Every structure is written in C-alpha cells, then in structure tokens.
C-alpha cells in the first residue's frame, strides 16, 4: 500500500484545497432529489431538537413557577413533548441513513470514474506507476473520501444546521444574551483552526509512520527466509524498533494535541458560556424579574450546542485526509497519458492481415530511442520472428503493434492502411496477443478462456482448448472447466497457464497473432504440447513472434535479429546460420556443449 506522503499536504495550498472540495461536492449534483429529501428530514429533526427546551421553558414559566397547574394544557404540553421526541427520533434514523446512502453512491460513482479512467490510460502510465499505488487510488483513497462525505454530509451539515437553529432560537428568546453568546463563534473557530493546523500535521505523520511500519513488517514477512539465511534478524529487529518508536512518538503527539485542543478545550468553552449566561441572568435579576424558564432553555441549548462542535472537531482530520486523497484521485482523473487514439468511427476492417513496419523509430522517454528505423513486412499467413538479447527492442515492437504506446516517427501499416485508421474494436478483435507471463484472473478455467465474452458456448470453449492441446489437462482438473483459478493460477504449472492463455486467444479467433514466448521452467511434456499448439495456431494467421528459444521459430518466414533497437540481421533460419553472424552465435550459445557433442558425433 502506498503511503500518504507528508509532502502531499504541504503542496496543497488553501486555494487548491478549496478547489478539491468543490470538485468533490460537485459529485452531489446527480443526487439532487435525494438530497432534498435528506435535507427536508434534517430540517424537521433539527426543529424537533430545538422544540423540546422551548416546551420545557413554557412549562416552567407559565405553569410551574406561578404554581398554576391546569390539567388540559399540561397534558397537551406533555403529549407534544413526547410526540416530538418520538417523531424526531424516527425521522432522525431515516435522515442519517439517507445521508450515508447518498455518500456511498457518490463514492461508487467516483470509484467507477477513476477505474474507467485508469482503464483508458496508456501503458506508459502503468510503467511509471507501481500497481499498488494505482490500486490505492481506486480503493483506499476513495474510501478516505467516503469517510468525509459521510461526515461532511451528515455531521458537518447537521451540526451546522443545529448550531444555526440554536442561535436563532436564542435570539428569539433573548436578543441581548444571544449577542453575548456570539462570542463563542470566534473562540470555537480559533480552537478549530489551531487544532486543524496541528492535528492534520501530526495525524498525517502518524499515518505515514504506520504505513511505514506495516510496509516494513509485510516486507520482512515476505523476505523472512532471506533474512534468516543471511542472519540479519538482529539488524532488522533494530530497524523495526526504530520505526516503531517513531510511530509511538507520533501517536503520543496526537494524544497530546487531542488533549489540549479537542474535548477538554471545547468543554472549557462550555464553562465560559455557562459563566456568561449565569452572570447575565444573575445581574439582570438584580434590577428586574427574570423568567427562570429562559435560563433553563439557555443552559439546555448551551449543552446541545457543544456536542456538534465536538463531533465536527473529531472529524476534522478525516476531512483533511479526504482532501489529500481527493487531490490524488483527481490527479489521475486529469491525466492526459491516454492510450493511443484510434479512429473509432472507422469502418475499415482487417481482411488479409498484412503487416508492414515503415521506418519506425520509437522512444519511451523521448530521449533514448529503443527502436531505430525498423522496417519489415509480414505477409498474410506468414510468421515473422523477432530474436535478440534482452533489451534489444523485441518487446517494444510488439508494444507498438498492439497500440500500447503511441509512436511519432514512421508508421505501422495493416493491409496498407496506417494502424491508426482502424477502430479500437477492430484491432482488438482481429489481433490476438499471447503474453510472456500468462496472466490468469480469479474465476474458473472457463472464465479465463472466455474472459467477458459470455456468448461463447461450452462447445466453443472446449474446441479452443482442444485446439491448443489444453483440453487433456483441463479435463483432469477438479471440476474440469469449472476448476477454480486461485491466486493468479499458482496451483497450475506455468506451462498449463500458458496453454489456457493460448485457448483464450484462439477462442477469440484473431486474424493476426502476436506471441511473446515464455522462457522460464516449462516441463518437457507441456513444452511439447505448447510447441504443437503454437504451430497449429500460427497456421493461416499472420504471426509476429518473440522467440527466446530459437528452436521454436526455425520455420519462420522471416527472422529479424535485433540489437540495441536495430535490425542487424534478417533472413530465414538457414540463411542466418549460413551468415555466421549474431544469430549464429546466439544459436551456439543456447547450447554451450554443442561443439563438443558435434565432435563426438563426427
């Protein structure tokens, strides 16, 4: 999980924070109707909240103090007091649920927005950003924003409403005293802003320390065998203790600041309020009679006044966090590194599957060219193999052909048309890519073959699996095609995973096949199945293949040998061997004992 960096908040000016807030609040727009309902409920419950002290005041001043107890009005008074309590509580429940519901829906929308945005970004973005941090944006940051929406929408608005209501009622009861009470406002605002200033800093620091702590722990657990075998337990324990101590210090700072400025401080202001009210009544009573019920009502309102203030204060750090999280989420939403554009209106279709690279030069970072002036043609149904050292540019060619990255210089033509002119759907439908690491999703084997193409029938799925030699082993799995794939398919061998990925591609029946051959650890039996499957798949399809084992591409129509982004040799397998160049050397190196064996055989 990615940390909340302290710099992030430091970078946000007041103005930016406001912008983030207003943008977040703009998400409420589609929920206008529901908000109106929620606000109406809020008005009613607030009125209910304000009504009861008034009723008691009327009771004390008009009936109790004069000792004038008339049965009927008192019953009405008592009944309305209880009635208001019940109705208010009943409405309060719906009001609270409603606000949370709206907040949850807003967050869902925000999540879908950012997830869709992430999906639309080009692979360049994914190269530069660790997966964990993207996930963090989509889920954890939006969760932080959710907390704010729930609290802003309910606590803040509700508290604000109540506060205003209390003041209005106070003014109705006694203008002069209410004016005196206005003194709290700057006081509370001062405490709030002080608290916000310090606590946001300390709170973020603690979060940061906690996430460091968790990162350290999680990493240590993952690498525990390494730590133990290299005898570094003591050193890492010390390192952990240091981080733990810092976390403790940050925690203590939080407790101190909470103790100084949170509830104790608000309670102190309450006492101040009490002093003002009591003094006012006490001094007034020296000259003129005072309605004791008003005193009661004021004291009661004072009590009610400070609960929402406490609530708001406690939620301030959530607010701060949400703004930071919001800023990060919007940063992604505003990203311009979109996936390369396609002409989606285009009706062009890929008929033959002829691929031509024309003088293509490409760079990921705009500085270093990873492909230099690449030109070659793959005729319909032919196989072009790319070989070369790691980093020679093989994968970049495939990345460009798959439109994962945008190129500037040169062009890629399909059936004589620039690849840019085809619609995205057409490209995805006609071009199939098999990746080096066969990525399997959570779900069943069948799900992994069909992906989201639900129209595929069981027969079609089986047919595809049979075609790529995967049927045999899938049938042997528990529940065969409905076998659960867990943890990226870790229960399957890498060869089996690859066969499933093949079936996935064949089920989509592409015209053009792009292969990034897997290198690592495939057992011999599966290896044979893979080779057979590969040659079957290639039949009738234009194929661009990256080969790590040169043995797999001996029958390619054209082999391109890449070195540092350039095609240094080209030809068929035999031609290249005869050339005695880089290809020949690579070929010998793939089996160091070759010469000796040859000697033996000669």
């Amino acid at each position, binding site marked *: 999980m990615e940390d909340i960096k302290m710099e992030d908040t430091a970078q946000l000016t007041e103005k930016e924070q406001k912008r983030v807030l207003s943008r977040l609040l703009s998400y409420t727009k589609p929920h206008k109707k529901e908000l109106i309902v929620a606000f109406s409920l809020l008005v009613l419950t607030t009125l209910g909240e304000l009504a009861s002290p008034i009723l008691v005041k009327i009771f004390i001043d008009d009936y109790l103090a004069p000792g004038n107890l008339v049965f009927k009005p008192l019953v009405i008074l008592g009944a309305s007091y209880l009635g208001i309590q019940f109705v208010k509580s009943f409405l309060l429940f719906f009001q609270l649920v409603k606000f949370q519901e709206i907040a949850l829906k807003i967050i869902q929308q925000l999540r*879908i927005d950012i997830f869709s945005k992430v999906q639309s970004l080009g692979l360049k973005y994914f190269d530069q950003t660790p*997966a964990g941090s993207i996930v963090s944006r989509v889920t954890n940051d939006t969760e932080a924003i959710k907390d704010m929406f*729930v609290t802003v929408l309910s606590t803040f608005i509700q508290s604000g409403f109540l506060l205003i209501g209390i003041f209005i009622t106070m003014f109705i009861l006694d203008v002069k005293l209410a004016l005196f009470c206005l003194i709290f406002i700057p006081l509370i605002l001062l405490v709030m802003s002080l608290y916000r200033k310090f606590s946001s800093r300390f709170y973020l620091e603690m979060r940061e320390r906690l996430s460091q702590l968790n990162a350290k722990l999680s990493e240590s657990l993952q690498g525990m*065998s390494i730590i133990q075998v290299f005898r570094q337990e003591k050193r890492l324990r010390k390192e952990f203790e240091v981080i733990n101590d810092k976390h403790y210090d940050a925690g203590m700072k939080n407790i101190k600041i909470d103790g100084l400025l949170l*509830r104790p401080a608000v309670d102190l202001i309450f006492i101040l309020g009490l002093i003002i009210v009591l003094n006012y009544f*006490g001094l007034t*009573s020296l000259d003129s009679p005072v309605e004791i019920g008003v005193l009661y009502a004021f004291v009661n309102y004072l009590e009610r006044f400070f609960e929402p203030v406490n609530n708001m204060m406690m939620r301030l750090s959530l607010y701060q966090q949400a703004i930071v999280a919001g800023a990060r989420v919007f940063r992604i939403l505003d990203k311009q590194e979109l996936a390369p554009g396609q002409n989606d209106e285009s009706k062009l279709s890929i008929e033959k599957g002829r691929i031509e690279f024309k003088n293509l030069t490409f760079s990921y970072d705009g500085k270093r060219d990873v492909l230099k002036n690449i030109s070659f043609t793959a005729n319909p149904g032919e196989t072009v193999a790319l070989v070369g050292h790691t980093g020679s540019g093989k994968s970049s060619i495939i990345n460009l052909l798959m439109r994962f990255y945008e190129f500037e210089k040169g062009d890629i033509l399909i059936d004589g048309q620039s690849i840019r002119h085809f619609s995205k759907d057409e490209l995805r439908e006609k071009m199939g890519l098999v*990746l080096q690491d066969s990525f399997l999703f959570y779900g069943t084997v069948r799900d992994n073959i069909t992906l989201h193409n639900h129209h595929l029938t069981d027969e079609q799925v089986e047919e595809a699996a049979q075609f790529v030699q995967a049927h045999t082993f899938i049938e042997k799995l528990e529940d065969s095609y409905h076998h659960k794939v867990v943890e990226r398919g870790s229960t399957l061998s890498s060869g089996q995973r690859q066969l499933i990925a093949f079936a996935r591609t064949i089920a989509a029946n592409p015209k053009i096949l792009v292969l990034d051959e897997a290198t690592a650890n495939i057992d011999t039996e599966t290896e044979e199945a893979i080779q057979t499957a590969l040659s079957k798949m290639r039949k009738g399809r234009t194929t661009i293949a990256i080969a790590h084992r040169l043995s797999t591409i001996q029958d390619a129509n054209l082999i391109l040998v890449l070195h540092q982004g350039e095609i240094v040799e080209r030809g068929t397998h035999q031609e290249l061997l005869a050339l005695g160049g880089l290809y020949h050397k690579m070929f010998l190196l793939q089996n160091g004992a070759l010469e000796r064996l040859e000697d033996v055989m000669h």
Partner: protein
Amino acid sequence: MKVFLDLGWFFKQEKKAYIFGTVILLFVALLQLVPPKVIGVIADHINNGTMTKGLLLEWMTVLVGAGLGMYILRYFWRIMIFGSAVKLSKQLRNGLYQHFTNMSPSFYQKRRIGDLMAHATNDLQAIQQTAGLGVLTLVDSLSTGGFVILAMAFTISWKLTLICLIPMPFMAILTSWFGTMLHRTFHKAQEAFSDLNDKTQESISGIKVIKTFGQEKEDIEDFRKKSQDVVEKNIVVAKIDSLYDPTISIIVGISFFLAITFGSKFVLAGELTIGELIAFTTYLGLLIWPMLAFGWLFNIVERGRASYDRVAALLREKSDITDRSDALEIIPSGDIHYDIEKFTFPGENKPMLKNINFTLNRGETLGIVGKTGAGKTTLLKLLIREFEDYEGGINFGSHTLQEYKLEKLREVIGYVPQDHFLFSASVADNIAFTNPNAPKEDIFGAAKLASIHDDILQFTEGYQTVVGERGVSLSGGQKQRISIARALLMNPEVLLLDDSLSAVDAKTEEAILSSLRKNREGKTTIITSHRLSAIQHANLILVLDNGEVIERGTHEELMAAPGWYKEMYLRQQLEELVEHGGH
C-alpha cells in the same frame, strides 16, 4: 472482563501511569458535578430574589476553578491512560516482530502473510483500544455515572433519581447490542471492500490482457457490480449505525420527561426547588455518556479479548528449529555428506526426499537436475536448516548440521533462492544485505561477478536506485542477478544457486558461470537447474526424480550410459543438430 486480567502484567508494568490516571479520572468525575450544582443554586437565588453581586462572583469563581481544573486534569489522564495503551501496542508489536524473526519456515507454511499482518495491525489495534478506551470507559462510566447518581440522589432527590434512571439501562443494553451487530455487518462490508481491492489489483496487473482483448467496458461493468456490492453492504452498516442516535434521543427524552413531570410534582409539593430541578436535568444530561460508554465497554472488551487471545497464541508458538544447548561455536568447514533416508514436509504424507546419499568434497561443485517438484530445492533447504525432521543425517566437515550453532552454519552459506526477493532499498543496500558497511569496491565486485554491474550503471540512479516492491520494477533476470551478487558479497564457503539463472539469457548465464568458476576456486558450490548447460561442469551431477536420485555422475559419465540425463541432453541437442542440416 477477563482481558483486563490477561493484561495484568502490563498494568503492573505501567502501574504509576494507570494509578495516577485513574485517580485523575475520579477527580474529573467529581469536578463535573460542580457546574450543574452552580446552575441550580443560581437559578434558585434568581427565583427567590436573593441574588447579590458578591454571591454571583463567588459562584463564578467556583465555576472558573472547576473548568480550569477539569481542563488540566483531562489533559493528563489522556497522556497517562491513552499513552500507556500506545506503549502497549508498541511493545507487543516489537515482540511480535522479534517472534516472527525466530520462527522457521514450517511456521510460515501454515500461515498466510496477510493473516500475520492482520494480527500485527487489527489485533494490536483492538488490544490498544482495550488498554486505553476500555480502561477509560470502565473507570469513567463507573465513576462519572456513580458520582452523578449519588449527587442526584443525595443532594437533590433520591426518589426522582430512581424514577429517571428506569430507562437508562436500556440504553446500555441497546448500545451494546448495536455494537455487536455493527461489528458483524462491518466485517461483511470490509470483506466486500477487500474483494473490490482484489478486483482492482487484478485488473491493473492484467491490464495488458484486458487491453489486448478489448475488454475494458466489460471489466468496468464487473467493477461496477463489485462496487455496488460494497455500497449495499455498507448501507446495512449505515442502518445499524443510524440506530444509535435515535435510540439515545428517545431514551434520554423519556428520562427528561419523567424528570420534569415528577420533578414538578415534587416542586409543587415543596420537596424540591425549581433550581434544583434544573440542576437535576443537567445532571441527567451528564449521565448519557457513561451509559453509552457502558454499552461500548462490552464491545471493546469483547473484541480486545479475542484479539489478545489470538496474539498470545501466536506468541506462544515455538520455533521447531533451535540451537542445541551444547551447539558448537565453530564455523563449519570441510566436505558435505548427505545421508537421508526420508524427509517429509510437516503436515504432508508423501515423502519429499528418499535415500539421498552423496558426498561433496570441499571445493567441488554439485549439480542437481530433475523435473519441477523432484525435490531439488528441498535438498538445499535441508542444508540451511530450514527444515529438520528427517530420518538420517547431514554432515558438514566432522559434525552433523545440528551440532553447529545455526548462526555459525548460515555464516558460511550464501543462498540464492528461486524466488528472487529484493527489499525496498537501494541496489547497493540489497547487495550489501549481509554487511551494510561493505566497502563500495566489494559491492561493485560482487555485482560484476554476477554480470549485473553494467545494468545497474544504466539505472537512473545507479547503485542508489531503489528496487523491491516499492521501487523501480526490474526484469526477472536483473532481480536474479542482484540476488546472486547479494550472496557473492559474503564470499561464502558454500554457494547455493537454486535455479537462479532461469530468467537470464544464455549469454549472460555463460558469463556468470565462467566468472564463478574462476572466482570460486577451492570453494563449494551447489547448483540446481532446469537448463543442463548450467551444471555441465559440475564435479558431481545428481538427477532427482520424485525425491530419489535416479542417476549420478559427472557429465561425461552420465552421457556414457542411457538415462534421463542423456535423453534430456540429447533431446536438446538433437533439434539443434537437425537444424544444422544434420552434420
């Protein structure tokens, strides 16, 4: 409440803080009684017309004193009680970490890292809550609640107190009940959230596949469904959460109603003054919090106990690999001799290794080949004592492995595991893992031996580039070579390469192997590999199948007789030869 007993050792350790904290809490509870009393007194004076400036000043001074006193005392109990709780979680966290570093792989085999993390985060959080908020709510609800009730009963009216208290226990019962329900539904909501998290993680890791198959829209739809599930589960939580306020409001409302109704009766009967009635209702307001807290207390304590039990069980667990009391302090050296009849992984039935018998002379190289799952890695793990429960023995020099101190044994072994794990630190720190103070030249030297030096120089920040989970992503081959360099920096007596060259290309493999041959003259090396080229120069090659040695010898010897090795070797050769036109 048993958890408070379980935590007794900690309360004892921090007894000063807890005793002072509790005493302060009691004082605060007493001081809290002052303001309502003052309100009542003033109200009565006003009502009776007996108010004077002096009286007013007197009572205001009392209020100011009580207010300031409470402010200061409240600050201090927080530091003492909450501070101790934070200390507890720190202490437990250190303890857990230390414990984790002592546990052997069989411990980690049984558990998932996610669960261990949960113990160290959620469980510690719950325990911290118990030691902080739990103690606070216990002391505070008892003291504040007690004092307020006493004050109401003795200074105002015990009859009225009894009447008004009737609805209050319901509040404690209901809040406790809501708490349990809330916890359960919240758990479900968390699960839905974690599903969403997994879904996102998966989509991002598989973004290439999604883009390749043009499945963005469908994937977003899937995401929408999952996020809808999160919304629904959270609404259930919201509904329970929203029960609190209305419930409190009704119960408090009833209580107030009773106070006013019966209170006025007493006022008219002359048993009570109006001021006292007002003071009484203010006291009643003070009771809300202790009642609520009492309800919470049960939830906090319940959760704390479950968490504490889990953490304690974890800490009780003993490592199955420990030093003997008479373990030798000497560094092992000499020939390595395996004589293992049978080894079975803990908790499994099928033996992983059977009848493994060989001697590897000091300074020689052993190659181990065979299919995936044949037992190659297990063979190495026994040498570094990750597992022990086998029949037979392994000798290193003149002693068995168990006779050495674990630390001494591991001091001479450089291990490069199959899953090349790097820490989130700079490349230099990763290579210098065994010796953080290693001079630059040594680090460079190890990197050069592992053929990774030039790659590292290409990185944006060279040796200072941060790698690992939270750093730049490296290719599998680069990670493998850095792990090799990490082991080579120790210049170990015994080097174990566990299929550590699988992700590097043939040219690099050849370069690394030949530099190792030169550099490790006279030192023992064990290599497991799928590629036969990596072990071809070994002094002894073992072919494993199903945990047994099916063939052994040098490359030449193995090639001289028919068998798996020869077949495998020729199979690779044959294809090449045919390609060469069959010459």
